């Protein structure tokens, strides 16, 4: 599985797929992303940090649900 790519959580906290509750998700499964594109937010201690793709790819699937608790280094998205 060496060709499998992933986006990992840079911090522990709560993961959000959208910039705010009323807004649409940043990205959907099947979307193409470029390195640097934002795919979600991590809330840690009342601060929000963007989760960005580190390389180009296509979103295969989200490994965690919106508003779930994630650990640092946890896989958030797998890329094709």
């Amino acid at each position, binding site marked *: 599985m060496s060709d499998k790519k992933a986006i990992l959580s840079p*911090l*522990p*906290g*709560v993961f959000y797929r959208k*910039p*705010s509750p*009323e*807004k649409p998700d940043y990205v959907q499964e099947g979307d193409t992303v470029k390195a640097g594109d934002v795919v979600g937010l991590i*809330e*840690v*201690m*009342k*601060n929000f940090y963007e989760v960005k793709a580190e390389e180009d790819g296509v979103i295969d699937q989200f490994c965690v649900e919106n*508003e779930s*608790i994630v650990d640092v280094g946890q896989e958030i998205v797998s890329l094709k």
Partner: protein
Amino acid sequence: MSDFKKVLIANRGEIARRIIRTCRRLSIPTVAVYSDADRDALFVREADEAVAIGPALVKKSYLDMENIIRAAKETGADAIHPGYGFLAENSAFAERCVAEGITFIGPSASVIRLMGDKIEARRQMKAAGVAIVPGVDGALSSVEEAIQAAQEIGYPVMLKASAGGGGIGMQVVSSDDELEKAFASTAQRAGSYFGDDTLFLEKFIAAPRHIEVQIAADQHGNVVHLWERECSVQRRNQKIIEEAPSPFLDESRREALCQAAVRGARSIGYTNVGTMEFIVDEQGQFYFLEMNTRIQVEHPVTEEIAGVDLVEWQLRIAEGRPLQREALPSAPQGHAIECRVYAEDPRTFMPSPGKIETLRLPDGVRLEFAVTEGDQVTPFYDPMIGKIIAHGANRPEAIRKMKEALGRCVVSGIKHNIPLLVNVMDHPDFQAGAYTTKFVETVLKDCGQGEMRT
């Protein structure tokens, strides 16, 4: 003795512990509510009873009104103390408490609502004769209206979200072009953060100081001030160090500021302890910013110089008892400084959750800590793990005591901001009382790029 049979504390961490301490002294039983992440927290162990109210996410626990009301009913609590943050300034929650026959330890829902709306609050204070920052009184309906207003006030101006706070949803602009660009983006950000995209505009004050007045008001029309706190040492627009009295004010300005705060609070029929926040310019002219209708993080510095227990005052006011002015000294007693200890990188302010391996705290100062050695600092809540409060006969003595106390703190396992606090205490500008809200940037620059000196 108290009229309350049992007080539920709708909060966590150090403020929950602080409220429990006063209730215990007054022989009032307490109920803690806690999320899954706080199951083993100190405040849960210290309360007489504790009720689980949901998962770690705040909106499913500490912000879940129904679960909290249910906990109060199940435990027979007849009053709820909201602490600060969470539901403390939520008018719907205050209303729910009243509807359920539970005393909300705070002002009425209508006063919370009034002061929560920054435009209304400004209008109200202006009508009461309290100076406000020159600006637009109403909500801005268009970018053209904003530009016209900015030209009248004079650049630079600050574009602000009506529902904003804590430094979020505000932007300084220096020209028509900048204002045009900032208008849409600030409105959009305000809409997504606060669910309200209403904007207003104020004159931007250069070299500002943040000075606030602690007031208390009972249900019998008595309003008193307990002098001011200077809270200009901030990072990311959030306070790190507070002191009382302010080193900037002379006696006549202090009196004018405190009387303005009393006048403002009286004009809205305020009841509870509360804080009128002001921005003060280089000439010492002060302008009303906003009112916090709750106990504040920095209340201990006022308690130290006034010799009172503000949580007790909140309880007494909520019980309907009259304020006892004679409990106050005729002048501030000495000088007090508070340092907030945050679990974060002292230079980048990046949060640092984790396990506190070592926590050794000094004696000779007042400590208000949320955690103990071996506790986990979770990523779910505020990074503040505790506060250190030093009180001296005068400002130099308070600074000396604080420096000694910080020097004796040992915290390991997480990053923390004690090195920054030490550098502030050591800085000649801080020692001279010559600082503004931009001061932390100066301290960081003066520390250079390497590891911070401790």
